[in-house]
């Protein structure tokens, strides 16, 4: 924590010195885009190349400049008091800042993201937390947490939630795990997760089920990373067979994103593997499909052209090209065509037998 504080003070001090010398102060931010990241398979995540943009104080930038500094000041206060603020709360705090207040939350979110990237820290380290839900867990896992009041150890057995699930907290750094599961199955949709929980699939396959609900949140990514790294268990990802499932959900979970590249190091899951739905699955399982929409095609082509992760993987290029050639996409739930529990009885067992052949 003090490390972040130091960074805030150092940067404020640099700005102050410039102003004292009657020079225009600047702030530097890494460019947050896929164009500014590279992928080295050995290191396992998208990392920044180092392009930075400068925000120099001018008439046009004076408002954002002032707001950025005020957010830094708010962050300093939060860290010192060991408090937290949701991004929404931070937005409301700004309402005290007269002319420097934020009109809409997206404006304050952007500035918070900027500060986070500037210091190359996680926004939780700045004292800001998202409202988003972390993800749901069920199956053969015991999470060791602390009681919020007494600080006493709490053991949470994820097999004991019945038809419900354990909810991943926003901050996961303090959690410890106990498990003897063979693998973690990470699922895109809450619907598929519910089906597998209802039929106690985790018991049958001796695994941990985690629902992402779309693109995984940072907490979810960090939770899976710590779990798989700490307990050395493989992670299999089960998403829709479409460009969004591949290049947004799976890629973000495995190697991180271009937008928050400065934290990818901590928030990637390098040993994640892609179970399905693969383009080949669509053929093999004769799945009902929908045609690819224009946005799907654009996303797929974009991934082939610009995504450093896809670009280095021949297998992925082949799979995406195959999907483009077929011109269709298939959802996880499409397996229901063969019977509601076909996924449990046939699809997953068949796929898991050939875990080595999962896409990287």
């Amino acid at each position, binding site marked *: 924590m003090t490390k972040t504080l130091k960074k805030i003070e150092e940067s404020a001090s640099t700005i*102050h010195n410039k*102003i004292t010398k009657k020079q225009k102060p600047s702030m530097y931010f890494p460019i947050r885009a896929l164009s500014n990241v590279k992928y080295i398979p050995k290191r396992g995540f998208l990392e920044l190349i180092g392009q930075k943009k400068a925000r120099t104080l001018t*008439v046009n930038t004076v408002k954002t*400049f002032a707001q950025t500094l*005020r957010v830094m*000041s708010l962050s*300093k206060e939060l860290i010192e008091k060991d408090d937290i603020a949701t991004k929404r709360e931070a937005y409301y705090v700004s309402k005290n800042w007269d002319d420097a207040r934020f009109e809409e939350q997206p404006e304050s979110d952007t500035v918070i993201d900027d500060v986070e990237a500037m210091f190359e820290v996680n926004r939780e380290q700045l004292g800001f937390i998202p409202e988003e839900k972390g993800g749901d867990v069920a199956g053969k896992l015991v999470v060791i947490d602390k009681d919020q009041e007494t600080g006493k150890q709490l053991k949470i057995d994820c097999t004991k939630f019945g038809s419900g699930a354990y909810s991943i907290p926003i901050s996961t750094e303090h959690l410890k795990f106990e498990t003897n599961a063979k693998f973690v199955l990470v699922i895109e949709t809450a619907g598929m997760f519910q089906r597998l929980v209802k039929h106690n699939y985790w018991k049958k396959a001796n695994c941990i089920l985690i629902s992402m609900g779309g693109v995984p949140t940072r907490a979810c990514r960090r939770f899976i990373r710590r779990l798989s790294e700490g307990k050395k268990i493989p992670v299999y990802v089960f998403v829709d067979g479409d460009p969004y499932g591949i290049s947004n959900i799976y890629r973000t979970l495995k190697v991180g994103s271009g937008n928050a590249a400065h934290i990818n190091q901590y928030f990637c899951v390098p040993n994640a593997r892609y179970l399905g739905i693969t383009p080949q699955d669509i053929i093999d399982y004769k799945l009902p499909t929908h045609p690819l929409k224009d946005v799907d095609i654009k996303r797929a082509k974009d991934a082939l052209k610009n995504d450093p992760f896809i670009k280095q993987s021949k297998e992925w290029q082949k799979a995406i090209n195959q999907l483009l050639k077929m011109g269709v996409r298939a959802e996880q739930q499409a397996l229901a065509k063969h019977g509601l529990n076909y996924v449990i009885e046939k699809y997953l067992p068949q796929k898991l037998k050939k875990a080595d052949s999962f896409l990287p």
Partner: protein
Amino acid sequence: MTTSKKSKKLTETEHKITAHDLAKKQREISVSEFFTKNRHLLGFDNPRKALLTTIKEGIDNSLDACEEAKILPDIKVRINQVKNTEDRFRVTIEDNGPGILKSHIPKIFGKLLYGSKFHRLKMSRGQQGIGISAAGMYGQLTTGKPILITSRISPKQPAHHYSLVVDTQKNEPRIIKDEIVDFDSKRGTKVVIELEARCQKGRQSVDGYIEQTSIANPHADITYINPEDKETRYPRASKELPVEPKEIKPHPYGIELGILIKMLHDTKSKNLRACLTNDFSRVSTRVANEICEKAGLHGKSRPSRIAVQEADALFKAIKLTKIMNPPTDCISPIGEESIIKGLKKQINADFFTSNTRPPSVYRGNPFQIEVGLAYGGVLPEEGLIRLLRFANRVPLLYQQSACVITESAINTSWRNYGLQQSSGALPSGPVLLMVHLASVWVPFTSESKEAIAHYPEIEKEVKLALQECGRHLSTFIKRKKKAADEFKKKSYIKKYIPHIGIALKEILDLNEKQELKIVNNLTDILERSRS
């Protein structure tokens, strides 16, 4: 002619009506009778317009007379409502002009198509000699009252007073009263017409007309007393009289076949070549020979003979011969300076500009376009711009959409000059635009002189003048916007710099003095970088 021929044919094929029967029905139509039935052609469509047209004709005549006599015009216009009536008004127009010879008064005011302006090519307000007598006739038709004229030509002479009615059958004046009277002024003319009318406020009203007249004639001093007895003065803004326009001979290109035949008949020249060189402008002996050659005519032929037999060939030959454009010094524009003076006098705006184009020619008629523009100030931000049209310094109030000036203004892309404009419409914004066409012959679309006809040459000149003024306007708007931006920037800096001070103070635990220094330094840095 054709009718009688036809009826002859019909008799031959033994129809019941004989040529004699038809001939009995044929009779001459007097001009006055014709206009009685077609008064809308002269601008007397309805009581409201009748009042305006009457005043317009009176003012036009006064201004023309004063300018020809090189007198700075003082004009008084008064409208009285006739007692115990709703729709009867007495219009009095009085000037300090040269006066009218006693012998001329009856014909000028009591005979249609009598005037000094039709038979010459010279820039003037009136053209045909219809206006004032038509107004008098309208009054006579609606109220039965004669037109009253008092005129004095010099302080040494007494003033004459006439009371006239038009004999609409014969198109001749009938004198009701003819006497010598007392007259307040040393010199001038006073006309009184009583007519059925309606007095209304607004742009197409007498007030609007007089205001616009005063803009285009900054050398005139006009006083207007409305029916409620309220006096409005439109003072003189310039003591310079317009340069007197020169009279020119017609240019061959501007002549129609009928007029050509008439000119050939009426010429004093003995042979065709002399007729061409003497009666037309820009026809040298060489050009005359060329025309004759092209027409296959002999230069020595008698013009009156040509008129009958070979006028057509001559007419065609003229079109085929290259003839120099007519002289353009016959036009007297208002002038860029006077336009601005006229506008400034009536409109409280932030910016004025004007442009007088060099003279140009349409169909052999010289003309000149002028544009004046006022921006901002009291002019309303919302809505379309106000467009004032003038022809030979006379405001045109009606038929705006039929006029070439309006079309040119619409076809100019005002967006380039900082105004908003939807396609097919005038631009919007706080702008008053005046466009003046000066010409020896203004091509009106009709005799009521409300809209100018669409000649491509005219449209082009109007557009060029508008564009020039547009460029001036755009420079002004840009400069104004820059100043506004500057102000905005300044307040922007003031707004946000203190927050940088606060934030740095909070993060670095600075004291108030240090915070103040930050704010002062930053203000300096940013203000310096503003240029």
